[in-house]
């Protein structure tokens, strides 16, 4: 394997020394392009109090290509499917090498705060969301307390 580009080294150093609030990301010891991410659900969202595990991988041609990111924790969200895949423009067509791991993770956190059922990935969830938003939010909260419980959790399942 080729040496790790300086940009990745720098980004990793900064992620560790100056982490994004509510998000931790650490590279795997065996593969410095693979990160284990833990993301707090945003406050006053259905995902509040949940801690979601994600995996993030930097392809060989990063930063020309976006990182590959996937939820490992089950989540009820119109833009995230059963396999944890995320529908987010900056992870696809709107990627730019000016973006970084930290900005991508922030975008994902923002997506949790404001689901967008009009550009769905999980069609059934999006349908539910559009039909009865209150009910969908209820399910999202239920899933959060069921699957995304914080390890240090307050345990306030509603």
């Amino acid at each position, binding site marked *: 394997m080729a040496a790790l580009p300086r*940009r990745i080294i720098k980004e990793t150093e900064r992620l560790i020394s100056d982490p994004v609030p509510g998000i931790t990301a650490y590279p795997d010891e065996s593969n410095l392009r693979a990160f284990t991410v833990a993301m707090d659900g945003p406050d006053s969202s259905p995902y509040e109090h949940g801690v979601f595990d994600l995996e993030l991988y930097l392809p060989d041609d990063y930063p020309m290509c976006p990182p590959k990111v996937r939820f490992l924790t089950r989540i009820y969200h119109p833009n995230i499917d059963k396999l944890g895949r995320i529908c987010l423009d900056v992870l696809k067509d709107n990627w730019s090498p000016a973006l970084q791991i930290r900005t991508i993770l922030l975008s994902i956190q923002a997506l949790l705060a404001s689901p967008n059922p009009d550009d769905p990935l999980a069609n059934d969830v999006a349908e539910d969301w559009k039909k009865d938003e209150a009910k969908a939010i209820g399910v999202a909260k239920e899933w959060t307390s069921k699957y995304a419980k914080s390890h240090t959790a307050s345990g306030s399942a509603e």
Partner: protein
Amino acid sequence: MKVQVLEWNAVASWHWDLKVDDSGVADELCGICRVPFDGTCPSCKYPGTDCPLILGDGCTHNFHLHCILKWLEQDTSKGLCPMCRQVFVYKRIKNMGTSEELHNLQVLIEGHKAMRERENEENEFDSFEDDVRMTD
């Protein structure tokens, strides 16, 4: 008294001149590889002549030539500047990069332009701002 300088062995450092017309000093880091411009892009061994810069024209963003080439090779780049997402156009300066590299750059930029025009024909509602810029 006469003091005559017979010979001078000096030590100096070279720097890219990144002053953008009016807006003062530009970024010191390449927005793509995040290495200072006076250093090399990830694929070069030696800075300077071997790893030239490309100065944005129209936007104020500069890059290592090899970095922007790699970006524009991506279809997803759509020919846009990674920093400001304007259509990327560069200043033509003599001796910056090999003719082959500059040719490739030109080909890529034109390719993206053609792509955009085709899309515009397909979707009349799209913005034509890009085209305006490209006609310089």
